[in-house]
Every structure is written in structure tokens, then in C-alpha cells.
């Protein structure tokens, strides 16, 4: 009888380990060491032939002569440039619908609308983006709250980096309203909110006085706006034309929100104004605009990142998935460098700064001890037009390899089977 018991125990053990083994195709290593030809840390100088030590998905150390523990799995990347993955501080792609029909819906969340199967995420990972703040679109006054996700995962939960991040406010008049009507709508909402909160506090105070229990919660539909007022959420205010910027600044001053401005190309005209308030800015995807000078009737080229850079404004780039070049964050940074921006600053605008704007800079945006081991392995310098993302690592795990990217292969290689008709008309 005892032997039967032991046999059962052993069988159970074996079964368990088999199940365990099949559940994970690739073992997640506890300790990793990446030996890279070049490491761009973003916060410090670039390191040639350096090493990054990773433990449990967190960067333990990075440097030129780092000692590698005996039990660390070594990834050879001598011909690669390793840098932090790109961070996108604002996008409305990957959603079922970017905008709601009703103008005031701050209680909505993009968490409920993100489509993990959307090509947008597959493309983003391929292009080296490791985190994006998905916010509602530009056509809703109070659009709702955003979600920071990584473009990798079968479900939104699996993609999740940070929930409940940012509340989108758009100053573009919805439907047939005028700007006047749109602003009034916002003020009325805030005024009603203020009344509601005062009454709520009054009821709370009354209950306290009467020594009665008070378990009334804030109306969940208003919770997000209340959190905005209490600086628990950041306001992402979209300005459609330059004239919206003073309005956005007025909102910032009046309610003392923690504010990030999301700009359209026209807003370059307000760069000086924005610089005074030292507010962070997310640039439009279109970086170069041509405007007609009314007097000379000639076209003049305006380079938006340079205008803001010269005014001393800190910014992050956006992308446009329908455009050739500006669908890539590296292209946006390279365009800025072409027109005179310093390389280090341009690279910060696609890594560290967007991470700061969306509040994930504790773990992303640079290669420093304590941050997440989330990197991209590039075939050459990030601003090089020929550089490809070879691998993407998120929290110590390789989640993308160009070699295994079937879709990319299909797009770059000659099809194996081409139907050739015998004759054609």
C-alpha cells in the first residue's frame, strides 16, 4: 500500500512538472545580461560595448564593465543598439471608436474600448513602441479617461500598464456648436459640478454633526472630474487652433489641473504663450506646415518642433499611422534633428519625456537601475533611416523578433507563389 502511495506521489509530481513545462514555451529567466554594441541610456552618455544586468524583469545595473553573475542568461547583441522602447504619450488609435456622440462623458474609459487585435498594436510593437497612453479622440468635450498599455497581449488586462491615466478634454466644438457654445458648455458643467460637491460636503458635514453614519459616495459619473480637481488625474487638453491655447491656459489657471497640452499644427503660433506657463506639450503628427504669407503671397515653411524647442517648451511626439514617415516615432525625432534639434533632446522626446507626461517614468523611458527591462534592439542608430527593430524586450521577456515576423516578411519579400496566367487579355 505504501508503494502505491509513493507511485501516486511521483506520478503527481511528474504530471505537475509536465503541465508546468508545457504551460510556458520559453522559460522566463530570472537573471539576464545583455551585451550590446551600443547602449543609449537616454539619461547618461551612450555606452559602447556595455552590459545591462536584469533581474526579475528589472534593470539591476548598466555600464561598461559590469560583472555578469554566473547564473545569468547572456544575450549577445554586439551588433545591436539597445535603447529604451519608444513611448507614445497620446493616441486614439486601437479603439473601437475614438469619440462618443455625447459631449460630456468623463466617466467613460478607453480600457473598455481598446481592441487588442487591432493592427495598430501589432504595427506599434514592430516599430518599437512599448507603451502608449490611449485616450479618447478630439471630438468630445469631456471624452473620458485613458489607459496606458503595451502593444502586446491577448486581452486588455494582459496589455495593461496603468489604468485610469489622464482625462481628455477637447476644445474643438462638437457637432454644430460654436466655440462660444462649446466653452460655455464646459463652464456650466464645472459650475454644476461645484454645486454638487458643495451640497455633498454639506450633507457630509450635517451627518457628522448629527453623529449619523455617512456612506454616500460621489456620483460615479462625476468621480473622474472630481479626481481631476483633486489632481489625482492629469488633464490632457486638445487645442484645435492657436486661439484655443489661451482658453486651455485659462482652464489650467482656474481649476489648477495638472495639465498636458495636446496640440494641432496651428498651435505653433502660441508657442511663446505656452513657454511662459511651462506646460508640457504633445506635438501634432504633422511637423512641417506650409503657410501663405498674406502680404507677399509666398509660402513659408514652419518647422513645429523647432519653434517649440527654441521657445524652451518640453514636448513629446505623436505619430500618424496613415503617413509614410510620420508613422514612426524615430522619423519624427530625425526630422527634428534635421532642422537643428540636438540629438539627445530629440531622443528624450520619444522616450523619457512622454514617459514623464503619462506618469510611467518610474519604470520606462530610460535605461537606469531600478527601471523596467523594456528595450528595443536596433540594427543601427535609432535615427538612421535604415535601422530596423530587431527585437523588443518587455520586462525582461523577448516579445518581438523581426526574424519571426511573418507579416513583415510578406510585405518585404517577393511572394513565393505568383499566379501566372497562360495568356492574358
Amino acid at each position, binding site marked *: 500500500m505504501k508503494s502505491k502511495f509513493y507511485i501516486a506521489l511521483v506520478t503527481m509530481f511528474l504530471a505537475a512538472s509536465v503541465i508546468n513545462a508545457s504551460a510556458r514555451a520559453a522559460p522566463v529567466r530570472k537573471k539576464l545580461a545583455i551585451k550590446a554594441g551600443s547602449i543609449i541610456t537616454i539619461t547618461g552618455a551612450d555606452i559602447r560595448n556595455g552590459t545591462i544586468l536584469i533581474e526579475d524583469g528589472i534593470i539591476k545595473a548598466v555600464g561598461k564593465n559590469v560583472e555578469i553573475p554566473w547564473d545569468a542568461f547572456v544575450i549577445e547583441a554586439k551588433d545591436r543598439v539597445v535603447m529604451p522602447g519608444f513611448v507614445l504619450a497620446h493616441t486614439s488609435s486601437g479603439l473601437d471608436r475614438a469619440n462618443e456622440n455625447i459631449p460630456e462623458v468623463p466617466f467613460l474609459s478607453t480600457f473598455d474600448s481598446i481592441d487588442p487585435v487591432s*493592427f*495598430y498594436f*501589432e*504595427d506599434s510593437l*514592430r516599430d518599437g513602441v512599448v507603451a502608449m497612453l490611449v485616450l479618447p479622440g478630439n471630438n468630445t468635450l469631456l471624452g473620458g479617461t485613458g489607459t496606458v498599455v503595451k502593444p502586446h497581449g491577448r486581452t486588455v488586462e494582459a496589455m495593461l500598464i496603468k489604468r485610469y491615466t489622464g482625462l481628455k478634454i477637447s476644445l474643438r466644438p462638437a457637432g454644430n456648436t460654436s466655440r462660444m457654445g462649446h466653452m460655455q458648455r464646459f463652464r456650466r458643467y464645472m459650475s454644476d459640478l461645484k454645486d454638487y460637491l458643495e451640497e455633498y460636503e454639506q450633507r457630509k458635514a450635517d451627518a457628522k454633526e448629527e453623529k449619523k453614519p455617512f456612506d454616500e459616495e460621489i456620483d460615479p459619473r462625476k468621480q473622474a472630474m472630481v479626481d481631476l480637481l483633486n489632481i489625482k488625474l492629469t488633464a490632457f487638453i486638445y487645442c484645435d487652433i492657436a486661439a484655443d491655447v489661451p482658453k486651455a491656459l485659462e482652464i489650467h489657471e482656474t481649476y489648477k489641473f495638472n495639465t498636458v497640452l495636446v496640440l494641432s499644427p496651428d498651435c505653433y503660433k502660441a508657442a511663446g504663450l505656452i513657454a511662459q506657463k511651462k506646460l508640457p506639450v504633445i506635438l501634432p503628427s504633422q511637423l512641417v506646415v*506650409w503657410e*501663405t504669407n498674406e502680404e507677399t*503671397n*509666398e*509660402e513659408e*515653411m514652419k518647422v513645429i518642433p523647432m519653434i517649440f524647442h527654441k521657445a524652451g517648451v518640453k514636448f513629446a511626439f505623436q505619430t500618424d*499611422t*496613415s*503617413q*509614410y*514617415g510620420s*508613422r514612426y516615432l524615430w*522619423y519624427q525625432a*530625425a*526630422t527634428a*534633428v*534635421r*532642422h537643428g534639434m540636438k540629438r539627445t533632446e530629440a531622443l528624450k522626446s520619444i522616450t523619457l519625456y512622454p514617459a514623464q507626461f503619462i506618469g510611467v517614468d518610474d519604470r520606462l523611458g530610460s535605461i537606469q537601475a531600478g527601471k523596467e527591462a523594456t528595450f528595443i534592439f536596433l540594427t543601427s542608430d535609432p*535615427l*538612421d*533611416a*535604415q535601422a*530596423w527593430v530587431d527585437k523588443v524586450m518587455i520586462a525582461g521577456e523577448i516579445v518581438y523578433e523581426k526574424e519571426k515576423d511573418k*507579416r*513583415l516578411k*510578406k*510585405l*518585404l*519579400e*517577393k*511572394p513565393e507563389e*505568383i499566379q501566372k*496566367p497562360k495568356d*492574358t*487579355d
Partner: protein
Amino acid sequence: MRTCVILLSFLLLIPALAQDEQSEVTAIKAGKILTISGSPITDGIILIKDGKIADIGTGIEIPENASVINAGQKIVMPGLVDASAAPPVRGDLNEEHKEITPTVRISTALDPQSKVLKRIVQTGTTTLYVSPGLRNVIAGLGAVVKPTGKIPKEMVIKEDAALTIVMSMDPTYGNQTPRSQPPRNFYFRRPTTRMAIIWMLRKSFFDAQKYAASKEKDDPEMQILASALDDKIPVRLNVRRAINIRTALKLADEYDFQLILDECTEGYKVAEEIAEKQVPVVLGPFYYYPGSLGQSREGREVNWNNAGILTKAGAKVALTSGAQAQSIDLLTAAAFAVRHGMPRDKALKAITATPAEILGVADKVGTLEKGKDADILILSGDPLEVTTRIEKVILNGKIVYKAE
């Protein structure tokens, strides 16, 4: 006697005076000159006189009174040739009252004050092809122009450079079939299907052949079609899908005209045949489609490496920026073509010498060689890098753009 001496010395002076009044010479000194026609020249000099390249090479003597542009270690290359650019034309590119309009010359609608001209120059293009729109089956005649000149005539360097014919579905858009209602406007007409487009083409070629044989002289439309069939004017055929590309190749054989494939989105599927027939390809700009599979209108399948695959098969490929005003510039188009697999040297040729050949203006532009137009770019670095800036653009020997 003294008067004679004075007179004589005067006479001797005159040629010397005349020498000073001769056109000035400009010299460009650069660390690297990409001639495109041959190997790059290191620490070279280009001499420009009367708007043309007078000499190019190393160790060239610079005349005393020459104005010198010292480009230091910058890179110099020929001005770019765009075989399909945003047209500096006013208004509609399509003459829509009927589908066959061979006499429409887009050069008559050129606008020297067009706003796109400044953009064209600042992105390095010094020669471009302007075509009628794609809404007609036989749309008319295109011209090769330079972005300079006060009046349209001054812009044109080659009139009637090609006859635009469209086999893609664009001519069907807007056409309607009169069913129960009587036709209300001239859009109630053929073609509404691919079948009809090809039929109209064949009919036109057939009529043109008959006309040519009959020795009549007074039908201007037939005259132009007959010239095309006689190889006097190349035919630029707009095609996207592989089936249309094959049909185009077949028609070119059948009617024996000089074919240039325009846009050619699925060219990679027919690469060998195109290369074999030595038909040049003017590639349309390369569009991304959400979904990465590249599906789009007309069911064409995009391959990002269209240019590379065609080039590897041996076809002659020109890259373009596309006829949209907001499109990408030529240098970036070439950079992306290389990124996706086109060899570097072919990509640089594809925006200079190759389009010049295809457009029939290779005697004037496309490479830096003695005798050609002085259309020159001075760049801050490698032309195929996004971080490179165009510092100066020289057109016909004059600086027309200088970066701030």
C-alpha cells in the same frame, strides 16, 4: 602717329573689356561629389558657366573672378528629377467632358505662381514631369518642366514628353449607366468597367492605325495617337494591379508603342516580365494601409519592397513623390526604398539619372557631367538619411534655395 597708337591701344583694350563682361563663373568645392554617372569624387570641384556644368573633377583650376561656394565636407549631388510630382498647375487636371482627349496639353495650364513650386524646390527637385489627371482613359500630353520661369513657356524643357493613358479604374469613377432615366449630363457614358476601358483603348489605337494608313492630316486627336503608335511620343500607362500590368505589356507588343509603366503597385508580381521587355517603371509613392497587409482600392496588394524586387529582377525603376501636394519628398522616398530593400546606388539613380532617361531629358539633367545643366544639391550629409538637410539648391547655375 600718336593718335594711331592711342587708337590701336583702344582697339586692343576692347576685347579685354569684353572679357570682363562675359558671364561669370561659379565654382563649387565639396568634400564629396556624387556624380551618379560614375564613382563619387572626393575633394572635387564643379565649374559652372552660363547655367551649365563647364567642368567637373579634381584639381581643376578656378578662374580668378569666379564666385566660390565652399561646401566644405558636405555632399553634393545632382538636382532631383521627379517623374511624378505635385503639379504646378491651376485647377482641375482632368478635362472631363469626354474620355479620349489626346489634344489636352497640361503644359497650357502651368502656373508659374503655383504654391507647390517653392516646396518642390526646397525638397531638392529641379526637374519634374507634369501629367494630366487620371480621370480620362486617354488623358492628354504631359511635359517636363523646371520649377523656374515667369511664364509657363519658360518652365517647359520638354513639350509633349509622353501621352498619359489610364488603365486603372479611375476613369470609371463618376460615370453612370443611364437606366430608366435619360442621361442628365455627360457622365452617363462608358467606361464603367475594366472591359470598357480596354475596349476604348483598343478602339482608339485601331482608329489611329487606320488614320495613319489613310495619310489624312486634319484630325489633331488622331494625329497624336498616330505619333504615339509611331514611337514618336512614349505612352505612359497608369496601372496598379498585376493583371493590368500584363495587359499593358501585351498591348505594347500588339500595337508596338513605347511603353512606360506608371504607378505599378503590383509590379513586384510581374517583375521578370517587365525586366525582360525592358519597360521602364515610374513607381507611385508608397502608401501604408492600416492593417499592414496593404490591401486597398482595386484590391491591389502592396509590397513595401516593390522597388527593390523590380530592381533585383533587372527592371529600370524611377521613384516619385506622387502627385499630391502633401506627399513625401523624393529623398525620403529613396531612403525608405533602401530601407525596404532597394540597393543604395539604384535608389539614388532612381531619383536622378533614371527618371531623366525615362523622361527623355537625360542629355540635360540627372547627373553631374560636363555640359549638363547646373542643377546641384548641397546636403549636410548622406542623402539617404532623414537627418540630412538640404543646405542649398542650385538650378540652372543659380542658387534658388538656401537653408537658414
